[in-house]
Each structure stands twice: as C-alpha cells, then as structure tokens.
C-alpha cells in the first residue's frame, strides 16, 4: 500500500477504513465528493445526513457494490474494487431495508449465506444457532421469513453478520422503521458487537439514537463531510460549547474557582448563588470539588449534554417545519 496510507496509519494506529478523496459521480453530478475519513479499530462510527446526502453510496463503494469514480478507500488495508473477496470475507453488511428469501426459513436463509462464506456444515450450524440465540430469534428459527416483522428481519440481518464473525459491521439505516422498543434492543446489540471489538459503521438520520451509540460521527451534506468528530467535539465546534453545567451553591469566590477548572469556557453568574458554565467535557466532579474547596454548600449540580439534534439543526439549518430537505 502507498505512503499516504502509512502516514494515516501512523497518526491513527489502527485505521480499519481509510477513505482518500473518495468520489462517486453519476454523469456530471458528484453525489459523494472527495471525502476523507479514517475509522479506528473498535469504534462505532456514524454517517449522518439528510436523505440523498450520499451515505448509502459511500457504503456501496466500500463494499465494491458500485464503482468508485475517483479517489480510493482501503478497508482493512484492502482495495474493495481489486480485492473484493478479501474485503467481503471480513466485512458484514446489513443493507437498508434488507431482504431475505421469503419462502425459506430463518435458518435456511442464514445457511445459504454461511455456505457462500465458505463455512463447513458443522461450523455453520453451530454459528447459526449461536447467532440466532443472540438476536433472540431462536424460537422462530424454523419459521418462514415471510412471516417476519421488520424488526425481526433487521435482527436476522445482524445475525448474518454475527455468523460471519465480521471484523467490521456496516449497517445502513439499521433502525429506520423500528418501534422505540425494537430500536433500543437493536442498539444494545450494536453495543455488544462493539464490546467484542467489532468496528461498526452505521448510517442514520435518527439523531438521538446515533448519539447514544456512536463514538464519532461524520455529518454529510450534499456529498461532502461537513464535519466530523465526537458529539462533544462537534458541539464545541458548532454551538461553541459542549456541556452546559449549572451549579447552585453558596461560598466565597465560587465563580472564580469554577472558571479555573480545565475545560471550562465562560462562567455566567445567574444569581448570587447560581452559576452556569460551558465546558467541553462533563465537569460536574470538578465543580463539586471547587465548591467544597471554597467551603461552600452545594445545593444543585446539573448538566446538559451536547445534543446531536442541536448540532445537526445548526449545521444543516433545518427549518422549523422540518422535512423540507427531503424535497430538495
């Protein structure tokens, strides 16, 4: 592989996916326009953006399912266009609105995929049983997929990734169309994958969920990455602050002490005993210590975590009515 990749590897020790000027053009329009990103091993990375921003297209290029117009992407060091099998052996993919063979059962569907993965019979049935247990589909294992709900299909798709023992799981809109309970369950499954060391790349426009599972996100706007980083980093960047901490306490010189805490931006005095400060991390513990150090009495300590919703709204200038971007 080239120098450039070695450089990026030095910067971020284990970049499992590295895109360099990755571009996809349909005719003259670039739907993905020279984007660059690195995804580290073991992190959950979110691709965020309105409909048509180019999230799915980016994913398809990583899997060799559509041709790359310019630039390149390395997945685990392999080029998906030239070494598709190397990539696909190690990467699991759950497409947007995944489809299964309706006339086959859950087990039969997984067995077919497992055969294509090259697994032998014994290994196949062992892994399939384990995967179905994990996604809690074991009791419907021998039912035809035609009878499955949307949530069950999504979980079956995840089971396929588990059967593959993929190093990277790419999930396109994995929770769209799921009810709140199913969403929570699905996000738990994603966290389990992360706990096992699987790198997860997911695309979504459901912000609060993404916020709950993603270590870092990239905000897509019209084929470009508008910004990228952890939610806290982005909120500092976009909103000027990440966390907003409110302190209610009396004591001498508390405002001064609070302002001295590392990571704290400005401190606003709301009343004699009430202060509001912005910080780039959750500084509640330090604030409590500061109050104690000033011999004060702490009455209330609250934090507003940075919200992706706010960042997104600011970044994309979402109008109040909402949904207008879809038409654009």
């Amino acid at each position: 592989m080239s120098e450039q990749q070695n450089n990026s590897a030095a910067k971020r020790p284990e970049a499992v996916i590295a895109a360099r000027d990755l571009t996809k053009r349909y005719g003259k329009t670039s739907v993905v326009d020279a984007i660059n990103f690195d995804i580290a091993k073991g992190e959950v990375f979110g691709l965020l953006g309105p409909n048509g921003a180019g999230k799915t297209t980016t994913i398809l290029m990583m899997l060799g399912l559509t041709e790359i117009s310019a630039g390149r992407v390395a997945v685990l060091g392999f080029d998906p266009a030239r070494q598709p099998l190397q990539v696909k052996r190690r990467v699991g993919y759950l497409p947007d609105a995944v489809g299964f063979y309706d006339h086959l059962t859950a087990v039969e569907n997984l067995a077919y995929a497992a055969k294509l993965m090259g697994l032998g019979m014994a290994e196949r049935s062992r892994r399939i049983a384990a995967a179905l247990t994990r996604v809690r589909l074991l009791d419907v294992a021998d039912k035809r997929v035609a009878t499955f709900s949307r949530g069950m299909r999504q979980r079956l798709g995840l089971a396929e990734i588990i059967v593959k023992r993929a190093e990277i799981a790419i999930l396109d809109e994995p929770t769209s169309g799921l009810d709140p309970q199913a969403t929570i369950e699905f996000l738990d499954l994603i966290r389990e994958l992360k706990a096992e060391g699987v790198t997860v790349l997911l695309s979504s426009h459901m912000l609060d969920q993404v916020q709950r599972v993603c270590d870092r996100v990239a905000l897509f706007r019209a084929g470009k990455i508008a910004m990228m980083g952890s939610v806290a980093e982005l909120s500092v960047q976009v909103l000027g602050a990440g966390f907003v901490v409110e302190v209610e306490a009396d004591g001498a010189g508390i405002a001064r002490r609070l302002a001295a805490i590392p990571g704290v931006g400005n401190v606003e005095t709301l009343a004699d005993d009430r202060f509001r400060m912005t910080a780039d991390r959750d500084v509640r513990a330090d604030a409590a210590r500061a109050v104690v150090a000033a011999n004060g009495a702490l009455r209330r300590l609250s934090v507003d975590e940075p919200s992706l919703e706010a960042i997104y709204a600011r970044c994309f200038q979402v109008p109040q009515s909402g949904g207008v971007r879809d038409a654009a």
Partner: protein
Amino acid sequence: MRREGSAFQGVGAVFVKELSDNISSVRMLMLELLIVLTAMAALYEAITALRQNTAEDPFLLLRLFTVSQAPLPSFVAILGFLIPLMAIGLGFDLINSEHNRRTLSRILAQPIYRDALLLGKYLAGLATIAISLTALWLLVIGLGLIFLGVPPGGEEIARSLAFLVIAIFYAGVWLSLAMLLSIVFRSPATAALVALGIWLFLTVLWPMLAPAIAQAIVPPDPRFAALGLDTPGTAIWTQLLQRFSPNDLFGEAMLAVLSPTTRTLGPVFLDQIRGAVMGAPLPFGQSVMIAWPQTVGLIACTIVLFVAGYVLFQRQEVRA
C-alpha cells in the same frame, strides 16, 4: 487484473439453492405439465400412425420423435416450440427478482464473485431443464417399447441421446437470453414480455420474413421458376438468414440426428445428388458430423448471450 480466490467459489451453493427452488416451484410444475401433455398428444398420434408399419422401418423408435399426424406437429417440432418457453419461464427473473426482493446486495456482500451467482443460477436452470427433458426422453423410449413392442437398437439409443443433448444446448440459448434480459430489465414482467416477443419473432415471423428478404437480395430467376425449382442464390440466402434463428438450427440438427437418411442440410442441387444412394441411412458418426455446425452455432449463441449478461452484470450498481 489478477483476482484472488477462485471465480467459482460459491457456484455450488448457488446451484443447489436455485435447483431446489426451481424443482419445488409451482411455475416449474406448470411448465412441465404443459410439455408433458402436449408431447404425449403428439406421441399418441405418432404411435397410432406407426403401428401400421411395424418392423419395416429399421429406425422405428426414432420415427416416434419425427412423425407427425395432422393436426398435431411432431414431437420434435413441439419441443422446438416449447423448450424456449420453458427456458424463458425459468430465466426471465433470475437476477431482477434478487434486486426486487432486496437480497442481491446482501448476497453479493458475501465473499463470492458476481460470476459465481450468475453461473450458479444459469447452471441450475439448465439442470432443471435437463432433468425434465431426460424424464421426457425416458417416457418416449418407454412408450415406444410398450406400444410398438420393438426394443430399440444401439444406434437408435445413440441418436436419441444426441437429440437429448442438442435439445439441452438449445434450451441453453433461450435460458441465457432470458438471463440477459433479467439483467437488463429491472422489472420481471418487462423481461418476460421482451423474451416472449423475441421468441415469437424468431419462431413465427422470421421463417416468413427470411425468404422475403432473400428474394429481395437475389430476385428469383424465372427460368428456375418455370421448371418448378428454387433459384439457387435465393435458396442459399433464405437458408443463411433462417439460420439466425436458434429454432432453425435446432430443427436442422434434429433432422440430421433423428432422420438417418439426411445427407445434407443445405439446399440440394442436382450435382450433389449424382451418384448418391437415395434413401440409404448414414452411419451415426456421419449424421453427427452433419448436425455439428448447427450444434456449435447453438453453443456459440449461448456463449455470446452469457458473456453479454456477464459484462453488464459486472458493472451494474447493486443498491438493493
């Protein structure tokens, strides 16, 4: 570009799944029923006609395939008509149905090349047809034994086997056409309609159009017409044009293989007949030699269509 791993990895898995899908499908059952019923009717007529002259013909069994009794065409002619229908019926939704079920990207995200999916599906379709045709072939031999009471000779078996093999190649042409259309058209209904249109054109219209075009190229000579003969130039063009239809190639190959007295498939001119013993059967090897170019034509046609589908499919974006 060198590829890592075998291009055939996964072909077996695809083949097994598709074959079992085909065999258990209602569609296949209907197609088979259609073929068996029409073929039986043709056979019944043939057997009634042949029972009158048992033992006079050394190739009685083969006559079962070719004898026609109005109003029904011969068994072979019926197959020439129905095999394409069966192949189209199996092939028109091979790829687009995977798109529409949204299974394609999931399957192609497994470590296989796209060729494996295409080849596995194609071979499964062909195997399905081969199984049906073999069953039909056994049926014909069995009925011949029962109703004509003459055990088939070795050469008859060899010739009828050659028929079976060529019929499978013929099915291969239509299957690869149907598969190509299933790649080109995202809607199975469109693919099926276009395939049926091409089939109708080549089986019904083309045999009528070809002579007309030939006459436009080489106008018939009134001196030949006066003698009640075809103008050689026109006849040659007619045949050349007709051979663009796989049906014609199949028909000619069948004629050579199943009618041992066939000496040539081209227009016959007087100088070719000079010295020939009319009506004497050719040895099996010679008949195969006569049918060879047609068979190769069918195979070549299959390869062209398959490669076209392959090239299109390789570059296609898989979003579903």
